[in-house]
């Protein structure tokens, strides 16, 4: 093990040396006065951006055209070639649902950057060459956002969306089992992060211990792109205190002539021994489209780096469909549903997910007149229906008390947005209503007692949260700077039926008399970006209020925290408020590629935390816990940190992607409950205690080389994670050693029909765990991550 670590340290040093000395030389060796050709591709019929269009740039004129470079459009239809030396080139656009065409562009008018906009008309072999040369127009917001396309996701071995999110800078994840990793953004977690599907749909999970975070409700293969907006600024989507994650699902489009296409994915991972299959069939004509898709995951227990099996097996079966249409280029509608069946083992929780059934429905209507002032009206309605059953039957203590919990959670909502072109900018005005309902029952079977008595306990008792919101977002681009402002008002009402618990004798042992609360929250954010040629500097600031969630308000005595205490909800909690500022430097040079550097500072008021109730007030309910904590609004939490991201230009054969991130979080004053054995014996006040579950410094580097006109791309990746020695004393958090991992991938695009992605993660079989991983039940040891894992994803398109 020591030898392997030494080898990895050597690899890291060599990479550092390369970055300091070799890489700049490499960049200058590729430096020249070359032109940049970039642009965006749209569906001419729907005016929507077209992703996955194969774009090739070739020499012209030539009897035998030579491909200079090739790429694919990203989720926003964009492409870029950044080192073009020729004076005249031909660009070829190819997509399975559109006719292939070429456009010749002359690069001789002295400009360095050529922006083109392409509108592809489906199935019509003529009039396709609508090319518009446009001025540069930035669409970057003044705060950090990370966006991953489906193409990037399917190149990796990911068991769920949460696992992929962990590869993004300053996004971590809490592992409790083999799947359903719970995202942490810059140290913010749970309801401090706003997770939405298709820009609107919220999901209230069933499990109080977050076996099923909202990100687990959409499979990675159904995702068109993942958008992560860091900071509290994206108020259109809701009040994400620390960040917003928007999962945009795949959706077909109308086509001029009837078309049918299909897509299949077959994946295998060696550790765990896991198979996954996903398929979709879609059809469309000039007015209607439909898609049916299904997937199945069957993963076994994985092995850690020392060969120990972790009981983490899971199966997931999903199917869904979408129908939609368009009329007169003005009206568009779609209706979709997605049904899922999950069974997941969670060795770091007291229970496993044994039967989780969800039904997500979503409807959307768009009216797009493209008027001088009125651009678009969008209405979205949704419902997320979750039925979650979990039990402790795989735990040793089920021999004494076999417990089954049954939770139903329903989230319904509607959101309407109008888009205007006014005051020389863009204005979005929206209203948003969401209703969350939750009810849960725990059945305890005392099977070591002669009459096997059964006891029923409420986890939630018909809890309901209604949220009414209205918001505005205004943005405008000036010659050298861009501005954006947003404001949001949330009226939040919560109530629950009586919160009461009786003991075996029928005597009340817990009662919360007042379960109703109403909160009015005002949130604001704003930002400005100043452009200095290739460099831009952005400053964003915001003050955002978040209402407490179902758990914080209404949970009835369960060990749902990081520390060993039963937790009790508090319906009278005040909103948590984040005051945050982000300073971002972006340098986008065609030779060097994009480079981003961000610093952030968050000052959180009314931070929701737990405080111990005296045993005379409340006895714990769970065996082995130290007592009962009630959620309350604690003191101030300060979180600071930085992020760095760099990627070489897309047209370089040799390239790299580098990210580094760090977050530092402190709670200003907190009580430490000193324990002896299973008893709290004393308390002490701690000032500036590190906040628990904050990821340590992390850096990752991917080095790749594009071969055979992008057909074959080998990639080697290194991920370095530092020790985490800043740990919470109040939460009894333990330090975590750092680690370095090496991985390798190979992406092969045979043609537009077949592609293969294969690789190996954790090549040296390192035995490690992440700082955010939870402890295995019954042990002080955190759950280890998988050891070496070979994977392959085979993708068919037709």
């Amino acid at each position: 093990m020591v030898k392997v670590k030494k080898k990895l340290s050597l690899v890291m040093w060599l990479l550092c040396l390369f970055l300091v000395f070799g890489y700049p030389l490499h960049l200058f060796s590729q430096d020249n006065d070359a032109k940049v050709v970039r642009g965006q591709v749209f569906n001419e019929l729907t005016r929507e951006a077209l992703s996955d269009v194969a774009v090739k740039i070739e020499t012209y004129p030539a009897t035998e055209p030579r491909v200079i470079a090739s790429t694919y459009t990203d989720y926003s239809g964009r492409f870029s070639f950044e080192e073009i030396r020729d004076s005249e080139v031909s660009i070829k656009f190819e997509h399975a649902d559109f006719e292939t065409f070429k456009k010749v562009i002359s690069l001789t008018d002295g400009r360095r950057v050529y922006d083109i906009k392409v509108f592809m008309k489906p199935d019509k072999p003529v009039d396709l060459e609508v090319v518009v040369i446009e001025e540069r127009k930035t669409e970057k917001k003044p705060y950090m956002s990370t966006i991953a396309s489906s193409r990037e996701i399917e190149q990796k071995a990911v068991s769920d969306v949460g696992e992929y999110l962990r590869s993004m800078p300053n996004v971590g994840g809490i592992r409790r089992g083999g799947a359903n990793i719970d995202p942490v953004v810059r140290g913010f977690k749970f309801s401090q992060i706003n997770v939405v599907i298709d820009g609107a749909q919220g999901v209230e999970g069933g499990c109080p211990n977050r076996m099923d975070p909202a990100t687990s409700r959409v499979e990675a293969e159904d995702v068109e792109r993942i958008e992560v907006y860091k900071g509290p600024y994206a108020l259109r989507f809701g009040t994400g205190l620390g960040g917003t994650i928007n999962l945009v699902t795949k959706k077909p489009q109308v086509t001029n002539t009837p078309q049918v296409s299909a897509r299949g994915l077959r994946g295998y991972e060696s550790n765990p021994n896991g198979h996954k299959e996903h398929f979709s069939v879609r059809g469309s004509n000039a007015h209607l489209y439909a898609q049916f898709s299904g997937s199945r995951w069957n993963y076994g227990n994985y092995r850690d780096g020392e060969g120990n099996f972790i009981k983490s097996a899971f199966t997931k079966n999903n199917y869904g469909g979408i129908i939609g249409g368009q009329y007169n280029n003005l009206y568009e509608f779609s209706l979709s549903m997605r049904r899922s069946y999950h069974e997941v083992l969670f060795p770091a929780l007291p229970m496993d997910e044994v039967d989780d059934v969800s039904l997500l429905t979503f409807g959307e209507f768009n009216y797009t007149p493209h008027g001088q002032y009125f651009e678009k009206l969008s209405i979205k309605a949704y419902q997320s229906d979750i039925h979650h059953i979990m039990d402790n039957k795989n735990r040793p203590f089920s021999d004494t008390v076999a417990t089954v919990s049954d939770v139903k959670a329903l989230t319904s909502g509607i959101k309407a947005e109008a888009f205007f072109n006014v005051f020389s900018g863009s204005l979005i005005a929206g209203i948003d209503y969401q209703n969350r309902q939750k009810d849960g029952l725990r059945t305890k079977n005392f099977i070591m007692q002669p009459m096997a008595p059964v006891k029923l306990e409420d986890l939630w008792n018909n809890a309901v949260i209604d949220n009414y919101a209205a918001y505005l977002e205004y943005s405008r681009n000036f010659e050298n700077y861009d501005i954006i402002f947003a404001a949001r008002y949330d009226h939040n009402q919560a109530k629950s039926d009586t919160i009461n618990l009786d003991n075996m004798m029928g005597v009340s042992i817990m009662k919360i008399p007042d379960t109703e609360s109403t909160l009015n929250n005002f949130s604001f954010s704003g930002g400005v970006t100043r452009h200095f040629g290739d460099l831009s500097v952005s400053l964003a600031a915001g003050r955002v209020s978040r209402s407490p969630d179902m758990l914080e308000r209404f949970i009835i005595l369960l060990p749902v925290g990081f520390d060993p205490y039963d937790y009790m909800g508090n319906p009278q909690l005040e909103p948590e408020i984040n005051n945050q500022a982000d300073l971002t430097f972006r340098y986008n040079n065609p030779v060097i590629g994009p480079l981003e550097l961000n610093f952030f500072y968050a000052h959180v008021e009314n931070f929701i935390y737990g405080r111990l109730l005296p045993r005379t007030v409340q006895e714990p309910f769970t065996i082995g816990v130290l007592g009962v904590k009630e959620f309350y609004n604690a003191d101030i939490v300060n979180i600071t940190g930085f992020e760095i991201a760099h990627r070489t230009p897309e047209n370089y054969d040799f390239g790299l992607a580098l990210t580094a991130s760090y977050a530092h979080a402190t709670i200003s004053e907190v009580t430490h409950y000193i324990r002896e054995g299973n008893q709290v014996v004393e308390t002490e006040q701690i000032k500036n205690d590190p906040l628990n579950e904050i990821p340590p410094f992390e850096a990752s580097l991917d080095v790749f080389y594009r071969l055979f006109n992008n057909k074959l791309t080998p990639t080697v990746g290194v991920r370095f994670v530092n020790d985490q020695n800043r740990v919470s004393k109040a939460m009894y958090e333990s330090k975590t050693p750092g680690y370095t991992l090496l991985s390798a991938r190979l992406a092969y695009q045979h043609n537009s029909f077949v592609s293969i992605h294969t690789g190996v993660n954790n090549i040296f079989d390192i035995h490690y765990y992440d700082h955010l991983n939870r402890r295995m039940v019954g042990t002080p040891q955190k759950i280890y991550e998988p050891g070496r894992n070979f994977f392959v994803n085979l993708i068919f398109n037709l």
Partner: protein
Amino acid sequence: MKNKLIYKILALSALLLIILVSCEKETEKRKIDYEITRSVTGFSVNYLDKNGTLTKKDVEVNSAKDIWRYSFTAEPRSIVFVSASYKDINSSINVKIKVDGKVYKQASTRYDTTMYVTVSGVVPEI
């Protein structure tokens, strides 16, 4: 054109395979036996039956060699429970749960009429 056709056939075959592979097989049930022996005169027994209902019976036996048995099939992870007591101070009892013919759990007492002998658990998965 020919290539395109080949790819389509290949892809459709793969999709068909995926759909066929995706067909779930049913969970295999396991045979459960509750057995009580060594009682000289008789005993009272409480057990969870095949429907998960708690059932109570008074059983009379002729000798300690008599075996009281209740058998059924159950899904893995179902709760199994049997608890018995006797009134004859000269007696003893052995309570057993078998899964697929093999002893899963058992317990015994001798000359103790005050305690119930309880054997319970969760049907293990194969």
